[in-house]
């Protein structure tokens, strides 16, 4: 019998079947990948294992014994640890305080931090880590915080670790370091379940994988049996997927977006953007690489008029639009696919149809003399929804009721339909399946070929490399360098994302 066996797990939420008769077998000492698209049921399955959900039916065996997991406390006791995608750390507390939080094995009332710190240091030594127990968590790098999360689980004597998309927030170098750390853990007999949708990570790190699609486990295989990326992708999506990105060389035209010495200091007096200067030309895609939170969202907000620069200027087609209102900027033929679709891209309580005219309701062909032409609006939107394969019962469905992927699709349909001069796309493929991602990417390339200037912000380096003509790296609000895609090396970009190796001007 395998170390962990989940038998015929079914979980339903009302009429929705999130897990349908799923089997999972994980061997001791293995790194086992759980691969699948958003909404395939990976998180549901792991939340069942960690006690956050109760399965509708099915059994779980750990180390040969049947276990009933009532809540996360039970799971922790059974030796199961989970590292969430968003770190569960308290930044204002010290490392050791975070480690002992809720852990009462050493003492029940008084905190014995010195004793805990000794135990923590031994643990660090064992796995070749060097995190000071007395440092405040907010002073740790993202990579260190993540390894702290793992150490926190190990401190509670976890034997089985669940890692949920752990590389989403890491630079390539930090990812390499994490993988080294994980391998070391398995050498000490730990077992790891690795949730991901990145095929490369599965191939380079894992021993075995289970692929989930629409709530069912569609395949279990050893990584050595996998023939190609496209085989895995096809199993994930359920049909053949072309993973290639087709992009021809193109000579860019005149400059459309021009940023000159742009700086922004927020209301707390923190410099979020410092002296950013670059341009995006007609017929080119400029990718902004960087770990989330290094000034990307401020940059985009400054360009689209949602924030006002502290100094410097923004020019669109030669017009100074620094400090202009968002509506005035949109009038300069700018399309914006925002980072957070719920907060910025759509009104959840309005219909899809209404949402799709939010930017253009006040001019023809949508309205005349201030009167909306609903017939025409519906026609146009219906066609757009068909082209972009927005799955909705009707365009009169409330936007909030659509799945995340479909919401993203109609937002992209709305933005790319306007034949804009400048397209600002922030995480355009967030939450989309591989097939749709590829479609959106090829649409962005078409827009570029049409002559649009595209500014692409993404935290997926693969996406940046596939689409961009030039790559700019943001670190702590500064542009570390701008490199042509052909000359760019992943290592160098990765180092710049970590703030090392700034280019000379």
């Amino acid at each position, binding site marked *: 019998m395998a170390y962990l066996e989940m038998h015929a797990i079914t979980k339903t939420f009302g009429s929705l079947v999130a897990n349908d008769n799923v089997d999972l077998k994980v061997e001791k000492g293995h790194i086992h990948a759980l691969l699948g698209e958003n909404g395939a049921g990976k998180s549901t399955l792991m939340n069942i294992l960690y006690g956050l959900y109760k399965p509708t039916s099915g059994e779980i065996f750990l180390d040969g014994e049947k276990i009933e997991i009532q809540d*996360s406390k039970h799971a922790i006791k059974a030796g199961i640890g989970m590292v969430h995608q968003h770190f569960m750390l*308290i930044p*204002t507390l010290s490392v050791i305080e975070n480690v002992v*939080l*809720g852990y009462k094995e050493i*003492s029940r009332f008084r*905190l014995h931090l010195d004793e805990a710190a000794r135990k923590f240091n031994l643990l660090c030594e064992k796995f070749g880590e060097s995190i000071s127990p007395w440092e405040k968590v907010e002073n740790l790098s993202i990579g260190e915080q993540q390894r702290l999360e793992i150490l926190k689980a190990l401190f509670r004597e976890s034997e089985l670790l669940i890692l949920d998309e752990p590389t989403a927030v890491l630079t390539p170098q930090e990812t390499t370091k994490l993988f080294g750390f994980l391998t070391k853990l398995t050498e000490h007999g730990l077992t790891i379940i690795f949730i991901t949708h990145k095929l490369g990570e599965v191939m380079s790190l894992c021993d075995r994988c289970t692929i989930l699609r629409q709530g069912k486990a569609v395949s279990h295989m050893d990584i050595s049996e996998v023939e190609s990326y496209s085989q895995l992708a096809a199993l994930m999506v359920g049909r053949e997927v072309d993973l290639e990105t087709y992009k021809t060389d193109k000579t860019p035209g005149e400059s459309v977006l021009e940023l000159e010495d742009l700086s922004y200091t927020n209301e707390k007096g923190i410099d979020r953007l410092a002296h950013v200067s670059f341009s995006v030309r007609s017929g080119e895609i400029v990718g902004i690489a960087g770990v989330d939170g290094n000034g990307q969202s401020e940059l985009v907000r400054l360009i689209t008029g949602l924030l006002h620069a502290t100094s410097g200027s923004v020019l669109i087609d030669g017009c100074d639009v620094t400090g202009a209102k968002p509506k005035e900027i949109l009038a300069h033929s700018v399309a914006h696919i925002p980072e957070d679709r719920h907060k910025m891209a759509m009104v959840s309580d309005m219909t899809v149809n209404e949402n799709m005219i939010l930017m253009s309701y006040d001019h023809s062909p949508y309205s005349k003399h201030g009167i909306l032409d609903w017939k025409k609006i519906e026609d146009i939107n219906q066609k757009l929804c068909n082209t972009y394969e927005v799955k909705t019962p009707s365009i009169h469905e409330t936007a909030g009721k659509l799945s995340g992927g479909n919401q993203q699709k109609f937002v992209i349909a709305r933005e790319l339909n306007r034949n804009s001069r400048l397209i600002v796309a922030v995480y355009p493929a967030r939450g989309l399946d591989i097939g749709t991602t590829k479609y959106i990417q090829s649409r962005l390339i078409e827009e570029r070929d049409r002559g649009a200037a595209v500014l692409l912000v993404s935290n997926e380096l693969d996406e940046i490399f596939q689409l961009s003509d030039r790559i700019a790296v943001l670190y702590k609000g500064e542009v570390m360098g701008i490199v042509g895609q052909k000359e760019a090396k992943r290592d160098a970009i990765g180092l710049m994302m970590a703030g090392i190796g700034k280019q000379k001007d």
Partner: protein
Amino acid sequence: MIETLSSFLSSTVRMATPLLIAGLGLVFSANAGIVNIGIEGFMLFGALMGCAGSYWTGSALFGALIAILSTMLFSAIFAYFTINQYADQTVVGAAINILASGITITLNRLVFEGKVPAISGFESLHIPFLEKLPIIGILFQQSLVCYLAFVLVPVVAYVMRKTHLGLQVLAVGENPRASDTVGISVKWTRWWTILLSGALSGLAGAFMSMGQVRFFSEGMISGKGYMALAVIVLGGYTAFGVLWASLIFGVGMALQFRLQVLNTGIPYQILTMLPYVITLVAVCGVNSKTRGPASSGEPYIKE
């Protein structure tokens, strides 16, 4: 001169005591992420219940106990709506204040029928030898509640920094979801901190009606609850910070009385403003430097 200084000290301490007691309760609830403007209403409720309890039982001690227990029950209303019903804390807090003002007026007229009967208040407790000290001797001629307030300061500080309980409160205030994943109940933590803060603010209110004066008058808290909120901000959310901050307010209020008596020519209306001006400066000026818990005021909805 010595006489004046001595009585100034005494009135400072007496003015600071209710702020200190309420503020210590807030150290728990505020650090757990609760913004409770209803504290004003809690204190008002406690002030009435203390008097009523003392009137019924004839004992100040029982009066205080009744104030503590009944205000704790009263605070459960706030806890239920903000924690279990995810209601906005500021809105519920405002509602609590309106409710308290109405309830105390009604109960006051029902219980005392418009009369001001003699009730037993907190008697001062003289500590041998220490009370004989020059100038500061008067500090050892205060009531039991007053001593209790000062003794509680190191106790609260210890619990917050050195025990699991305190760490859990801090964690819940900073990152409720993270606390949840390590098996800490966010709901329960917030419930007990609110109940505790309710109990202490009830005592603080009772001190005002039974320690400072010997009767209940409608609306008698007149902003001391808000001042307790300012105290916690000025005190940087720590027990010792709250001690210093409430003493500063105490000085402000004592000074105001003193200056009124001295007939300085300054209109008394200006002088009565003094403690409130300190509140304003504290909240606006200092607030930018001290950092409250990250989840302050946000209801926690478990997925």
